[in-house]
């Protein structure tokens, strides 16, 4: 050791000596020189000889144009290597170029065991030596899995710099077949707090301690990459990940690990479209929302029901966002299919617990669906052919490297098949749907980019020969992302959504009619992020939304018709909100995420509103006055503060506890007197007589990682109270009702539950098990008998299913074959039974029990699936993937509904099941 010191010492000494002999000043001129040509230029005009590795300069982007006259070589080289990771060392006429590291001419003071020199923060200021290399090599020889041959040096080592506690490691992650930017890849230092996630451009920025670190990536669809890095300073590390399409690794649905590790929010679930391809589903449709139903706390009233019930909330209490715009009906054909193209959908984040302050307008949950951004470099596509529908997605660059367009389409061929049938009755039936999506993104420059989504879905069906039902969703978004500086970023979003349905009644008589409903909303939103410090990250914003509802029209088609044309008055409303949130990291263990949202709603004219007698039931008979409001005149204003609080505390490294409280308001209500949501349900705005709904929820959760993070166990509990929940008087008429408030009841809701989730994401056997115990109750009380239900006491809501167990398991047999299964068990949902009969007039009638006093039989179902990857040749036209699945293998006759028919004075109970036998299906997926 002493010898080396001596030699180094001598080198530096020599430099001084020789400098007197050979001039250290040079005269040189660079014209657009890069490092290599600059070096060559210097070599030409001086005695200096450079030593370096040519490979280093392969991707050199330096361009120097400068003249030097009798300038010291050192100064010239400082210029040349500025903003690069290279250092140099001049010895006589030799210039040794080093990448990252510095050749030290002196040993650090502590080299021989002297106490380390520390700066005022107690940080070690000593340089990092290769000595540390040796120690890693040793460690890793014991752990042969970890490949550390390639040690990556990060940042430029600066002599005598004050060491920081952490450095910023940033870079782009690309991958897949087309080497496109990968978003949502987690970059982290294992077993530490240091982690980051890539944004849409594949960019990440990770704080890392100096010195030697192991960095690894984590992604649902790409192979894990582990890099050993030597951190000298802030620096870049770009990584390329390989697609794991040929691996059939895991069923990758996860409560986003990075989020679960980092955030304070409870009850968030992320489902990645790519990750769900192995889950067996009915008719082979890869359906992101159907998979959501296997997660605790998310339920549906039954097979073939369009709505979701999240933590005991009604169907209308979920905000479905597709690229920030509201999607009013996310389902096709009574909910049998989801109206989202599985190949253009990237993921859905479901917030069922604490909803971040940026979202609002619905009580129970937010389904934040994002679609894929296109590949800016290459043309690519993906598709699937199933028994009922086919899907296709193509992505193409528009301006190479800058902008791209994704187009997705999906259609069913049922109509074609029906038409080709012989049966006259069926021949005239229709059932068809399609959805289209276009997404454009354009990167203007490093600080600005825009993206836009256009979406349209259309359904058409007839269940009786004379009426044709149609409904459609249309939405458009435009988003401009702007980075003001390192700390401030913002997005301006404008969206428009429309949902409408139409019933075309066409019979041979004169009373044909056309019935329609439409809701339209236009929204402008400003979302800002301010990275104040490591401890505080602020987000704030504003939004405003204008609703226009055409509650229904009925126009007779024949002039001789006896029908009266009806056009219910248009409703208008303006919903605005402002929010601010702070992600406050109190300590490494304690994180607080608190937000405050203020929302306000103004029901606007023009309109006529009835005023009813106080302390009287609302009915046509108790009207005291009818008020008329002019266009855009405020009829009634509602509003309130919505605090959203969440806190996380790490009890140990792998065990955390989280608690949250949040309040939400909802100003728009879905009117549906069915148990389940149907496409002809109508949305109604709050007005003078219909109050907004509100809810408060507290939740507490415990999260534990077992076996080094391979298994995650979580336990969450919640308690929720809601007010002004809408219900209906028995036999309410909702369509085309000018005075709908006379049919409505507003009551109180109460829901609570415990959700347990056990997930294993790696290994041959992976999947998750979820169990929920929950109750959802409602109370409709009033001083008037006709407005009371069940004597004004709490009773089970239509979707109260206390026990809910689901298991989604995947077993990888070989690289190409994997086996998957779903098992679902649920308590039967509540139902009102007939309990007796009586005679009235000349007929017999039925007496019903208290509402929802009984339950239909329990629901259970087992599905199995086999997934086969195409061959593993690297060069071939398309990657293919077969999915063979059997839905309801046990052939369980699960009741969809139980209903009663009074037939010739006899009351008969019928049980309907939709899929009562095993349903096989086969789907072919391809990717090119």
């Amino acid at each position, binding site marked *: 050791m002493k010898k080396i010191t001596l030699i180094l010492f001598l080198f530096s000494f020599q430099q001084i000596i020789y400098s007197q002999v050979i001039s250290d000043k040079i005269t040189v001129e660079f014209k657009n020189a890069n490092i290599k040509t600059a070096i060559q230029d210097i070599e030409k005009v001086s005695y200096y000889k450079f030593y370096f590795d040519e490979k280093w300069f392969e991707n050199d982007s330096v361009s120097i144009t400068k003249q030097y006259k009798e300038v010291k070589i050192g100064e010239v080289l400082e210029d040349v290597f500025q903003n690069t990771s290279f250092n140099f060392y001049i010895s006589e006429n030799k210039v040794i170029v080093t990448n990252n590291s510095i050749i030290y001419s002196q040993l650090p003071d502590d080299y021989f065991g002297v106490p380390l020199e520390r700066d005022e923060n107690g940080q070690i200021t000593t340089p990092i030596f290769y000595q540390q290399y040796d120690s890693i090599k040793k460690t890793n020889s014991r752990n042969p899995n970890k490949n550390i041959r390639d040690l990556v040096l990060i940042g430029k080592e600066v002599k005598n710099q004050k060491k920081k506690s952490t450095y910023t490691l940033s870079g782009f992650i690309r991958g897949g077949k087309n080497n496109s930017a990968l978003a949502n890849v987690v970059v982290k230092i294992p077993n530490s707090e240091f982690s980051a996630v890539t944004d849409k451009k594949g960019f990440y920025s990770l704080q890392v301690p100096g010195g030697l670190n192991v960095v690894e990536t984590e992604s649902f669809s790409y192979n894990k990459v582990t890099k050993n890095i030597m951190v000298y300073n802030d620096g870049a590390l770009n990584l390329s990940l390989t697609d794991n399409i040929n691996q059939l690794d895991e069923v990758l649905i996860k409560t986003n690990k990075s989020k679960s590790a980092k955030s304070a929010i409870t009850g968030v679930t992320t489902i990645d479209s790519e990750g769900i391809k192995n889950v067996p589903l009915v008719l082979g449709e890869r359906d992101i929302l159907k998979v959501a139903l296997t997660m605790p706390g998310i339920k549906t009233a039954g097979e073939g029901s369009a709505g979701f019930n999240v933590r005991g909330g009604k169907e209308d209490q979920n905000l479905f966002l597709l690229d920030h715009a509201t999607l009013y009906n996310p389902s096709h054909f009574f909910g049998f299919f989801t109206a989202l193209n599985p190949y253009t959908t990237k993921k859905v984040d479901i917030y069922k617990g604490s909803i971040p302050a940026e979202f609002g307008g619905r009580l129970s949950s937010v389904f934040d669906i994002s679609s894929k951004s296109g590949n800016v470099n290459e043309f690519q596509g993906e598709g699937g052919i199933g028994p009922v529908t086919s899907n296709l997605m193509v992505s193409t660059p528009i301006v190479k490297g800058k902008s791209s367009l994704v187009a997705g389409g999906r259609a069913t061929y049922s109509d074609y098949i029906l038409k080709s049938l012989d049966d006259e009755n069926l021949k005239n039936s229709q059932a068809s749907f399609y959805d289209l999506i276009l997404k454009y993104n354009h990167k203007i420059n490093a600080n600005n980019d825009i993206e836009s989504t256009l979406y349209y879905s259309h359904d058409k069906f007839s269940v009786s020969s004379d009426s044709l039902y149609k409904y459609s969703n249309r939405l458009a978004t435009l988003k401009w992302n702007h980075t003001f500086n390192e700390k401030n970023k913002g997005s301006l979003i404008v969206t428009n959504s429309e949902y409408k349905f139409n019933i075309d009644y066409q019979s041979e008589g004169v009373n044909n009619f056309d019935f329609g409903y439409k809701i339209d909303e236009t929204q402008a939103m400003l979302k800002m992020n301010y990275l104040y410090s490591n401890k505080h990250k602020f987000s704030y914003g504003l939004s405003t939304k204008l609703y226009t509802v055409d509650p229904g029209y009925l126009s007779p088609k024949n002039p001789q018709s006896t029908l009266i044309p009806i056009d219910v008055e248009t409703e208008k409303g303006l919903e605005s909100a402002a929010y601010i949130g702070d992600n406050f990291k109190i300590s490494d263990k304690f994180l607080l995420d608190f937000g405050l949202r203020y929302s306000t709603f103004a029901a606007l004219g023009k309109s006529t509103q009835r005023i009813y007698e106080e302390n009287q039931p609302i009915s046509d008979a108790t009207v005291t006055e009818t008020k008329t409001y002019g266009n855009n005149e405020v009829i009634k204003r509602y509003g309130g503060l919505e605090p959203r609080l969440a806190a996380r505390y790490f009890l140990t490294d792998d065990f955390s506890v989280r608690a949250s409280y949040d309040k939400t308001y909802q100003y728009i209500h879905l009117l549906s007197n069915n148990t389940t949501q149907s496409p002809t349900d109508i949305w109604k705005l709050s007005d003078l007589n219909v109050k907004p709904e509100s809810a408060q929820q507290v939740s507490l959760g415990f999260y534990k990682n077992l076996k080094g993070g391979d298994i995650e166990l979580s336990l969450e509990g919640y308690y929720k109270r809601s007010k002004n929940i809408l219900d209906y008087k*028995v036999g309410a008429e909702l369509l085309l009702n000018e005075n709908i408030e006379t049919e409505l009841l507003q009551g109180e809701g109460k829901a609570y539950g415990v959700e347990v989730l056990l997930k294993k994401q790696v290994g041959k056997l992976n999947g998750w098990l979820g169990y929920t115990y929950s109750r959802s109750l409602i109370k409709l009380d009033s001083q008037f008998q006709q407005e009371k239900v069940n004597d004004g006491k709490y009773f089970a809501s239509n979707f109260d299913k206390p026990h809910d167990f689901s298991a989604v398991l995947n077993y990888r047999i070989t690289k190409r074959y994997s086996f998957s299964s779903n098992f679902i068990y649920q308590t039967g949902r509540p139902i009102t039974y007939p309990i007796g009969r009586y005679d009235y007039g000349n007929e017999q009638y039925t007496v019903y029990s208290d509402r929802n*006093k009984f339950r239909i039989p329990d629901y259970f179902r087992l599905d199995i699936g086999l997934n086969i990857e195409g061959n593993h040749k690297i060069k071939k036209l398309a990657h293919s993937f077969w999915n063979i699945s059997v839905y309801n293998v046990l052939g369980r006759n699960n009741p969809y509904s139980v209903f009663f028919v009074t037939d010739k004075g006899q009351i008969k109970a019928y049980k309907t099941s939709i899929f009562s036998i095993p349903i096989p299906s086969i789907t072919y997926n391809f990717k090119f």
Partner: protein
Amino acid sequence: MKKYLYKISLLLLLTVTISSCTEQYVFQNTDFESALVVEGTITNELKNQTIRLSQVYQLEESGPRLEKGANVFVTDDKGNEYQFEEKDTIYSSITPFRAEPGRKYQLRIKTKEGKNYTSDEQVLTTETKIENVTATAENVNGERGVQINVNSFDPTNTSKYYRYEYTETYKIVAPVWSSQETVIVSFPAIPPDPDQDFPGSPAGEDILVRLRNRETRTCFSTKKSNDIILNNTNSLSEDRVHFPVRFISNQNYIISHRYSIFVRQYVQNLAAYTYYKTLKDLSSSGGVLSPKQPGFFYGNIKSVENPSEKVIGFFEVSSVSSERIFFNYADLFPKEPLPPYYESDCVVKDFADCEGLPPCARNQLRGAIKSKELVFVSTDYNGNYGMVKPACGDCTSFSSNIVPPFWVD
């Protein structure tokens, strides 16, 4: 219902075999609770007003449980009290009375068990008369037939809600009718009389053709409406009713000859209308994919002792107006063929009254005559008989030969 489901499943399944099914479902009904059912409409007609009381019965039971021995009376705000007495299945007012406009009426019941019930106070609704009832030949929903409309008008614009009842009476003429009928007569055995050289004959029976002794060709059937028929004029600018109360297809035998309908129009208040509407809506079945939310709903009768006790029914004081019309098929559908008869198979079948192999069919023929499975049309008096189904030859087999007192030909 089944068809609907079948279609949906077919739409869904297409190439894959999937079955959705609707099957009858046996459910446990352990929670039976009885409740008093009150049915009472007091009208502005001077008559013995009636109230019906019964109890809810179990689904498996066949008939109503009448509420016997109750004390029923109606009071008004002028201090009048109308006592009711039990008569068979109903309670009828001892003295005839009519509801007067502007007075508040209340029904009071005290059951045998001593429980008291009262109704909300009801006021007589606006007295709106039926202007006329019309019958016109029309095409409705692709079907040709008779549309019977009720027309009425309330210039005060206060009768918004209407309920209808009708009674229809129609003439039936048996198409294959004979003035004669067959009966089986038996004769005793005659002992042999060797004196007369008579070998004797065994007991036997024979077919006797004789003239009918009662009307069997023309009959009259009367049917009451079962459904709750409601109409409102809420959406109209004035209370002008033009309501299709009944539609009869031109393929329905009941209008083949002469038809009469007696329509009663009750003007209701909103509460009564709502009650009946709810009742009607709940008894009709909803779609499979959109079943109705059933539930218990209260009328306007409450228990005095226990206000939350379930009581079914509505006590209403309603003005009523009625109208009868007649029409002949030939007037509405001149020169058009008659609708098919009640019994479509009126083909005359021939039987030979002889023993032995076919065409002999003595046992079959005589059995049918005895059991009245077939009726007589004609005979050649040589053992051959032409027979038809009873409905074709004898209308009393399904109708009545009594001419209703109001009938005008």
